[in-house]
């Protein structure tokens, strides 16, 4: 091992001397250089194995550097590795490809927005959100900020909410603010539970699952009393079976971790006693308020 280290130093030395800027080659730098080379050579398995062995920050730095490679196959490999070895650098590599000219690369980057899990990446998410014209990507970034951010991010989310015109993007921003504890946004979502439209109620339930605060379950009485058909749940080619709003609401209780004697997810048509139990649970939450 020591011999290999010395050999690496010797190999690195002429390069360092030849350059204006002197680079001290450490074992970590060697690994970074090796990762860069294996990515450039599209040695997929070797590159992945190496990235897993390295400190995530070092691997992320390489990914960030290589994310703008001219070859789309390299950029795809960078994203593939970023999905497996999360770090700040990996997240920045992902965010840098959200407007890639190659739609395939862009699609993969869009799918990995949810992998950007470091709090320190929130400013980058705001910047990427402002630069991106794609409303779906903006919405996904808003929700990711809601997931990894904190209440200090509320003003910047509110500012974008006030400017946004697209209803879906406004819903995404409101959900993100609600998740970060903004009471006004929580009230907006809760009010939708009493909307006359089935779709609005279902969407509100899904938003509350995202907000993830079981205390919001105390507002579920209108949806648990709603027996209207809501979502087809039968597998393809089977006779159509649909979940009612009350079934979706019970599913949301399960997702929020509210204790019930049964699981309501994956969605199914619940029995009347099961619905009544869910209703009783919600009423007890109302009373405990």
């Amino acid at each position, binding site marked *: 091992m020591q011999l290999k280290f010395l050999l690496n130093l010797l190999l690195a030395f002429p390069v360092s001397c030849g350059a204006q800027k002197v680079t001290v080659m450490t074992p970590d730098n060697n690994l970074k250089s090796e990762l860069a080379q294996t990515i450039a050579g599209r040695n997929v398995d070797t590159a992945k194995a190496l990235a897993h062995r390295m400190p995530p920050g070092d691997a992320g730095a390489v990914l960030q550097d290589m994310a703008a490679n001219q070859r789309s196959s390299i950029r795809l490999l960078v994203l593939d590795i970023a999905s497996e070895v999360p770090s700040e650098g990996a997240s920045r590599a992902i965010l840098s490809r959200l407007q890639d000219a190659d739609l*395939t690369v862009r699609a993969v980057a*869009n799918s990995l927005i*949810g*992998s950007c899990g470091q709090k320190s990446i929130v400013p980058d998410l705001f910047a990427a959100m402002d630069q991106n014209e794609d409303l779906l990507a903006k919405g996904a970034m808003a929700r990711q900020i809601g997931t990894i951010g904190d209440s200090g991010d509320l003003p910047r989310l509110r500012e974008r909410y006030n400017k946004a015109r697209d209803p879906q993007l406004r819903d995404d921003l409101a959900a993100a603010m609600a998740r970060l504890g903004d009471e006004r946004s929580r009230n907006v979502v809760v009010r939708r539970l009493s909307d006359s439209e089935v779709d609005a109620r279902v969407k509100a339930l899904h938003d509350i699952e995202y907000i993830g605060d079981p205390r919001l379950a105390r507002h579920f009485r209108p949806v648990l009393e709603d027996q209207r*058909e809501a*979502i*087809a749940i039968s*597998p393809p080619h089977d006779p159509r079976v649909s979940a009612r709003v009350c079934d979706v609401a019970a599913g949301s209780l399960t997702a929020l971790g509210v204790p019930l004697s049964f699981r309501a*997810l*994956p969605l199914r048509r619940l029995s009347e006693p099961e619905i009544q139990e869910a209703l009783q649970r919600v009423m007890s939450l109302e009373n405990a308020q």
Partner: protein
Amino acid sequence: MPDFRTTIWKSERVYMVDFGRAKTGEAHRRFPDIDDIGYHDDAFAAEHGPILSAMARQTRVTVRFHRAEISGGARLFAVSTDPNLVRITSPAHGRLSADRSQNIEFTAGNAPGPAAIEVRYNWEDGPVLGRLYVRIYARIQVLMRVHLVTIVQRDALGNITAQQGHPNPFFSKNCPNRPARVARVQDFVNRANEAWVPHGIVFTVVDFVDTVWGQPQLGSATLSPNFAELTQAGALSPNRSAVSVNVYCVPTSTMNITGMGIPPAWARSQGLRFPPAPLPPAPAPARHLSSALYLVSSSAATPQTIAHEMGHYMTLCALNPVTGNADQWHSTGDVLGGTHTRDDIVSRRRLMHPMVSIPNAAPSNWRNNTGYGNLAAGSYITYRRLPAAQDITFQESQHARTAAVAPGFYAA
């Protein structure tokens, strides 16, 4: 002989020229289906005519031109409104022959955009008798990881006590070993592309992996999983990719299906996310959606199965494009509570054909004489959008493309 022989009545609209698919039988990327369902497009209200598309840089894209109500002696020219997008390569100089039907070939430009092939009367800049709207799409590769799944049962010590490997024939062909099975799936994917390439969508197999499912994935000791077991195992599967569509080739299923495409948004709305979240305060483990393409290798699946089920994966007829909710499984008429069921030549040609009015069980005689071969399913993917009150299942081409680049498409 006069050029126009049709008696024109006062309020009659006559289409003197028409366009159609330039071949019959299986889908072919160079011979795309044409959306000729009426002359209304809600998305492009100023455009009235048939529509087709091609992928940027595609060559020799071929469409059939018909002199519907005009004499063979009339001088007609096919003229592109934007030769940078659509360059007509045949007939030479765009001059159409006197034949009642003939092919027009064009090369798609490097950049995406809309154009039209206009049929002009008497001169290249003469009056326009008809238009074919052409959309040139940028390429989107839909990446796939193909899992060749073996199902095993183990005893308490972890020893395998029973297993279900892939049958032979594998997808209806003699495939005695892994290379043959890989080649069979690859061939299916290649042929499924024939329907989708004109829409700029290319299914690309990134890799094949050997994946083993047992009780930890399936939740039971079954060798022939049902819907619940399949979807759970799909979410909990080893080798599940976060940057590709996971294609699970399973040996057998009790579901009596050839395949099933589950889009991430549908899986999310159903709560198909595994493992189940524990009650607080236990920390939630990493959880995965059941979104995937499931194919049953002992079934009579065909390349068309992949084309159709990937249509579902790209949200077609799985999500209501108006509300975004999961409320249907097939096309026109299969909408929850909808009354727009119909059975006509359009619905019979569609890749995403209806299930309510047209039974899917073999033999599907209703598929005959729709242009794709005896009993063969269609590959027609719609472009135009109709008012929501009429039909929410159209505009499949754009919906699929939007889904394929949207956040969460490759949901892990």
